[in-house]
Every structure is written in structure tokens, then in C-alpha cells.
């Protein structure tokens, strides 16, 4: 009786489950979908807010910028067919394509760009993208204080967009325009859609169109047949949300995914594998991994000699070789290779334990320094992989006891922002857009919210201001190099390594282009699947 009841109950349950509505199709997709995962659910798909690692790649596939970058970091025309720059370097006239369409079917015009840039810089919206892209335009400050629009942006006719820059903040304007979030949006979609307009549609003109967003499960993008550069040669992009990197790897091995980022812990094994080794793609990433020193909490860091001693006691080459098998390279400077103007040949501070101990003696703190704790950014296991050898080196070379502090991301970022919690922190910074300002202005300028080291140097600030007002790129980079050298020797942070991307790509995927920025790839408009 009991057994029978159990069996019947179980069968009913199985039947109920099998009849369930959400069982859905068997995941059978048209063959030429390109399948690559996201690490997490995107918090938004509004391009002006999509600045995290989950939202950015999706936005990147659906929208267009005025100019873009190729695999080598060279500027290319995109929505702008060409541009002229006035002799004083302040007026940019963009000649727009007349064959670019929004996914809704309407042609993209110069007025759309003006509307988009004003939305991006809107004081009500407070988008950080706006503060990168349009803050250097004449009239931006007035717009923040209530003016009707940004006076420096005009659209004399549908294919001409003219932008006048503020002389004091003109630096790197084209590089900023190539920021993946500096895109044009279809105002009809944004205005009609209200809050959360991006949840069911996109407002872009890029190679792929929003099709479906099943939260915490997957996103599907279809290719856009009227894309100005020709319809992509894949049916679309299928983007499952797979939070575990090991699960991503297993799915790749089981041919359920075409392109994945390699978990660092598996890198060595994959490289040695005769089959997988051939599918491995590695290339430089515009990312610097560094130890931030916070003098507000660990007061000994107020003394330049102590900061410099810590920087000189860390053997970057050894960490690169022994922990990262040479895959990540020692960082002598702050701005990584891949950023235009990279300070090649700059030696930075040497690894010199004896010199470091001497500096501590001079500062009168030798043997008296309190234990230091290093908080590790939990976003990636890399922070811990770097913090462990650094702790050993500081103990061995300077006699400082180091504790490693582990926490979760939400807590880490909140404490970092407070600036009064962590004595030091191991973290990294990757490029949003390929420009010097993305590193030096953000990370070290005294009033920047991201200056979590609380670095205050009037000389450094002055150099950065000069760079931003420099009349041309060559002069600007020369000034930035001076600022960078100053920051390295002042040692508010210790740049330790420059990282690389490691991806696995199936041999039947062709035409994929990489970049040192963002997630490491350019929109898949040229990708083909040749089976």
C-alpha cells in the first residue's frame, strides 16, 4: 500500500514535471549561431550605463560609435566616414555615413548623434560615460548647470556633425569617441520605452539586434541584415550566462560553446594539451595589476621613502615567472602596452631589497613597521595569486608581517570607496577606452573618485592638466610620460604585472578579431563558422 502510494505519487510528479510549460524546446539552434558565454547577468543594457564586464560586451555588439579601433589599436572610421580637424585642433567636423540605419529602420543622422551625446552628458542621468566622452566639449559645464543642450555640438545637416572642444579638456578626444559606450541611440526607442526600455529591445545600429533576454539564463542576438558594413555571416550570437568558469570550460569541451575565456588555473594544462593548445589564443590585455598603498590607514605610507621601499622590495619578474609562468609580464610603468603612447623602455623603480632596507633605515622605521594587511579584489583569483608572493617578499626583504584580507566583491568595492578601511589593496584596472587618460586621470588625479590611494601631488595634477590641454597627441603623450614617471617614483601604487587575454576558440570559428580593450574581442560582424 505504502510502496504503491509512493510509486503513484512519484509517477504523478514526473508527469506534472514533464507537462510543465517551461520545458521548452530542446535547445536546437540554427547551425551558424556563434556561441560565447557571459560570466554573469548584465545589470543593464542601456549603453550609457553598461560599463561592467557583463553588460559591456552585449552593448558592444548592438551599437555603433563614430570612430572605432582595429585589432592593433588604430583608429578607424565607423559612423563617421571621415573627419576634419581645424588648425587649432579644437573643431572636429565629422562626415557621417548616409547608409547607417537603426534596428527600427530609421536612418541615423547627425541630429541623432547630438541627441545621444546630450543624453549621455545629461546632468539628470549622471552617466559616467558622459564624463569620459562629452565632458571635454565646449558647453558641457553650462549644460550641467541648466543650459538646454551642449552648445559645442551642432548638426548643420543630416550627414555633418560638428563638435567644438573646450581647450582645457581637449585631450584624447578621438580615443574617447572610440569608447565602446560612446554610441548613438535611437531616441524614438528610448523615449517611448520609458524606464527600463532596454529590457526588451535595443536602440542601436550595430551588427546585431536584441532578440531575447532570459534573465540569469541567456541572451540571444540576431544579425542585422541592413548593417552598414554588410550583414554578419552568422545567424546571430547566442550568449548563455554561465557564472562558473569551470562549467564554461566543460561546455566548451563538450562542443556547447565556441569561444570562452580560459580559467587561469587551467592555462598551463590547456597550453600543453596537443588539441586544446592549438585552439588557445593569447594576446596582451590593456590591464595593469597593482598594489594600492593607502597612507590614510597605514600612516607609514605618508613617507615617500617607505612607499618606495615597498615598491622596491617586490620582485615582479619572479612573480611573473613563477606564479604566472611568464604569461603575465612585469609592469615597470602604470599604463599597459596596447594603450597608444605606451612608455616602452621605461625602467621604473628597480627590484633592490638592499636599497629598500636602506630607505626604511633613513626613514627611521626599520624593524618598527606594524603588520600590513592587503585586501584582495575577489573579482578574479589573480589578486590572491599576486598577493601571496608579495606578502612573502615584504616579509623576507623588509621584515614586515603581512596578512591577506579576503572579502567578497560588494564589500571590497564599498570599503575601497570609503578610503579609510584598507591599508593596502591588490587589484587591477583594465581599459574602457584605449587612452592614457583612462589610467592616469582616473586612478591618480587628486580629485578623481577612483584615486583610492588618496594620492595628492600638485605636480602630478599639473602635468595631467597640461596633457589634457596639449595641442597635439605627440606633445600630450610626452607630458603624460612625465606624469607617469612621477607617479611610479612617488609610488602611491606599485604596478606589478601587465596581464594577457587567454581564450579558447574552436577551429571552425574564423574571422574573429581581438583587441587589448574591454573583453578582448571586436564585434563579431566578420565571424564565420566554417564546419
Amino acid at each position, binding site marked *: 500500500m*505504502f510502496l504503491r502510494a509512493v510509486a503513484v505519487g512519484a509517477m504523478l510528479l514526473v508527469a506534472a514535471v514533464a507537462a510543465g510549460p517551461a520545458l521548452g524546446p530542446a535547445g536546437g539552434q540554427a547551425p551558424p549561431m556563434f556561441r560565447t558565454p557571459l560570466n554573469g547577468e548584465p545589470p543593464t543594457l542601456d549603453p550609457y550605463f553598461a560599463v561592467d564586464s557583463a553588460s559591456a560586451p552585449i552593448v558592444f555588439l548592438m551599437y555603433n560609435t563614430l570612430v572605432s579601433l582595429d585589432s592593433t589599436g588604430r583608429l578607424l572610421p565607423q559612423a563617421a566616414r571621415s573627419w576634419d580637424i581645424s588648425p587649432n585642433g579644437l573643431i572636429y567636423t565629422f562626415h557621417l555615413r548616409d547608409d547607417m540605419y537603426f534596428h527600427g529602420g530609421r536612418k541615423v543622422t547627425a541630429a541623432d548623434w547630438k541627441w545621444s551625446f546630450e543624453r549621455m552628458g545629461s546632468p539628470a542621468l549622471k552617466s559616467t560615460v558622459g564624463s569620459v566622452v562629452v565632458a571635454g566639449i565646449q558647453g558641457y559645464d553650462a549644460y550641467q548647470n541648466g543650459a538646454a543642450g551642449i552648445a559645442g555640438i551642432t548638426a548643420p545637416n543630416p550627414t555633418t556633425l560638428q563638435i567644438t572642444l573646450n581647450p582645457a579638456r581637449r585631450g584624447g578626444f578621438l580615443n574617447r569617441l572610440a569608447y565602446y559606450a560612446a554610441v548613438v541611440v535611437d531616441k524614438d526607442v528610448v523615449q517611448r520605452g520609458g524606464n527600463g526600455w532596454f529590457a526588451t529591445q535595443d536602440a542601436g545600429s550595430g551588427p546585431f539586434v536584441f532578440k531575447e533576454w532570459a534573465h540569469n539564463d541567456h541572451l540571444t542576438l540576431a544579425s542585422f541584415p541592413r548593417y552598414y558594413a554588410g550583414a554578419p555571416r552568422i545567424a546571430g550570437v547566442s550568449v548563455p550566462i554561465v557564472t562558473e568558469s569551470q562549467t564554461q570550460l566543460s561546455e566548451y569541451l563538450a562542443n556547447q560553446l565556441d569561444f570562452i575565456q580560459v580559467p587561469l588555473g587551467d592555462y598551463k594544462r590547456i597550453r600543453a594539451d596537443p588539441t586544446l593548445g592549438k585552439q588557445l589564443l593569447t594576446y596582451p590585455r590593456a590591464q595593469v595589476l597593482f598594489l594600492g598603498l593607502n597612507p590614510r590607514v597605514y600612516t607609514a605610507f605618508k613617507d615617500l621613502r617607505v612607499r618606495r621601499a615597498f615598491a622596491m622590495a617586490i620582485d615582479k619578474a619572479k612573480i611573473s615567472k613563477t606564479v604566472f609562468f611568464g604569461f603575465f609580464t612585469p609592469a615597470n610603468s602604470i599604463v599597459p602596452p596596447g594603450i597608444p603612447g605606451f612608455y616602452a623602455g621605461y625602467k621604473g623603480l628597480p627590484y633592490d631589497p638592499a636599497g629598500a632596507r636602506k630607505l626604511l633605515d633613513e626613514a627611521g622605521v626599520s624593524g618598527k613597521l606594524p603588520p600590513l594587511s592587503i585586501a584582495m579584489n575577489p573579482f578574479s583569483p589573480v589578486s590572491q595569486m599576486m598577493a601571496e608572493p608579495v606578502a612573502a617578499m615584504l616579509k623576507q626583504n623588509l621584515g614586515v608581517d603581512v596578512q591577506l584580507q579576503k572579502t567578497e566583491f560588494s564589500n571590497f568595492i564599498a570599503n575601497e570607496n570609503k578610503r579609510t578601511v584598507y591599508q593596502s589593496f591588490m587589484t587591477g584596472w583594465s581599459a574602457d577606452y584605449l587612452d592614457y587618460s583612462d589610467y592616469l586621470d582616473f586612478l591618480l588625479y587628486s580629485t578623481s573618485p577612483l584615486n583610492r590611494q588618496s594620492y595628492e601631488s600638485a605636480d602630478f595634477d599639473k602635468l595631467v592638466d597640461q596633457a589634457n590641454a596639449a595641442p597635439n597627441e605627440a606633445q600630450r603623450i610626452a607630458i603624460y610620460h612625465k606624469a607617469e614617471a612621477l607617479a611610479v617614483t612617488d609610488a602611491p601604487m606599485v604596478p606589478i604585472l601587465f596581464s594577457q587575454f587567454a581564450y579558447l576558440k574552436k577551429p571552425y570559428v574564423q574571422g574573429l578579431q581581438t583587441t587589448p580593450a574591454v573583453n578582448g574581442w571586436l564585434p563579431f560582424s566578420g565571424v564565420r563558422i566554417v564546419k
Partner: protein
Amino acid sequence: MARYIAYRVGMAVPLFLGAALLIFVAGHLAPGDPVQTVLGDHYTPAAGAVLRHQLGLDRPLPVQFARYLGDLARLNLGTSYVNPGLRVADLVGHALPISLRLAGLAVALATVTGVLLGVGAATARRAILDSLIQVGVVVGLSLPSFVTAAVLVYLFALRWPLLPVAGWGAPANYVLPVAVLAISPVAFIARIARASVGQALLEDYVRTARSKGLRARRVLFRHVLRNAALPVVTTIGLAFGNAIVGAFVVEVLFNIPGIARVAINAILQRDYTVLQATVLVYTALFSIVNLMVDVSYAYLNPRIRY
């Protein structure tokens, strides 16, 4: 019985209020903040203030709690803090059936297998079978699900590619996660079933039934199993709880968009509204399962009256 059920449902109201208050306070007191998590490295005090105001997080905690309760009373779970375009009810409505189906299947599988093994062990003539089952039970109880998951994925998805590694949608996607979720409940249902069947077999009424000449099978089904069922049913209730909790590992490993993954994301991102909703869902699930177990006692044992 109807009165008893009404009483139990009524008791659930303060339980929910308590759970809502606890999770609200715990969530807001925990270090970390949804605004800074969402904005990440693009956080500025100005951008943070705008978002904080939009989300209503700049109001005093009691005001936020009162507003939350008011919305809850109107069955409005609000929108996600991290993704303001997303209604929490939709998120839960999509994720919950997936987890329930997963847990339901795992419990069904565990019940059938566990009872069969338990009865088999209790009635086995040869002690070797009993010992084998006992060893299996210990192994099943000791193996953490992330280990069994890895082993099963390696064997059945990579070594012999019979099943998908992860994902959701096709019937084949159910097999491995359900198996992983069921392993530990199988073991403890088998253990309890063995013990209670073994005990019932020693009762006088069983000897009487046998002496009347009833066939062994009839004795087992009619007399032994019904009397041995109470502890087993309690265990099935526990197994359901176990499957729900086990989903926290299984949904992540197998990439299943269920309620446990929603909860984990909400915890990591301090997405308070979503977190509160998932805790309430779990409270409701456990209350319902407990009630069902208690009600089934009365059905199984006529001496129990409410």
C-alpha cells in the same frame, strides 16, 4: 482537520513578517551596498547619490521597511535594485518553477530509490546485501554534491558524451542535476526506511499475521510498510528541504536559472528586493512542506487527530 490547516496557515503570517524583518535588517546591515556594487569602478559619489535616490535607499530604514511591507501587502515585490527594469515577481515567477521541478524530481527519485533500498536492506535474507546497501548509504551521505557533480559530468558528458554538461531547457538537461540532488536524500531515506521497516518486522502483529499464514509479501505491504511509513514521510519532507538547499550548489554548477541562482546573485550584489523575495519564497516552501508532512501523518496513522 480544516481548522488545523486554517490555524497553521494563520500562524504563517507572523512567521512571514518575522522573516521579512530579519532579512531586511540583515541585508541592510551587512557591509557592502547595492549602489556601489552596480556602479563598480565607475562609482562616483554624485552618480551614487542619484542612483541611491532613485532606489529610495536614501530614506531612513524604518520608512523603507514600512514601504516594503506596504508593497508586500499588495503582493508587489518591487523591482530589482541592480536591474531596475526587472520586476522581482517576474524574476521569481520564472526561476521558481524551474527549482521546484528540479527539487520535485529529485525527491521523487530519492523516495522511490531510497524506500526500495531501505526495504531491501531490512528484509534481505543475505546479510551481504544489507551490508552493501549500508556502505552505499554511508558513501551517499558523505559525498558532497560538488564532487558527485564533477564526477558525473566527467563520466556522462565528457568521457561518454551522452548528456549535456550544463544548461537548461531540454529533458536531457534534467538528468545529471536531478541525480546529484537525489544522491544524499536517497541515502538518508534508505537508512530511515531500513530502520523503521526493521523495527516493524519485529512487532507482534507481524508475527500474528505470519502465523495466520499470510504470504510474506502481503505482510510487508499491508502491515509493515504502513506502520513504518511515519518516519519515512518525515524524512521525505526533510529531503525536499535538502533538495532546495542543495540547489545552491547544483544550479550554479549546472548553470540552471533557478531560484537558488537568483538568490546567490542577489546576495553577492546586495540586491535587497530580490533577496527579500527569495527568502520569503524559501520560508513559504518550508512552511508548506512541513504542513504537508503533518497532514499526511493523520492520513497514515488514524490515531493522530488534529
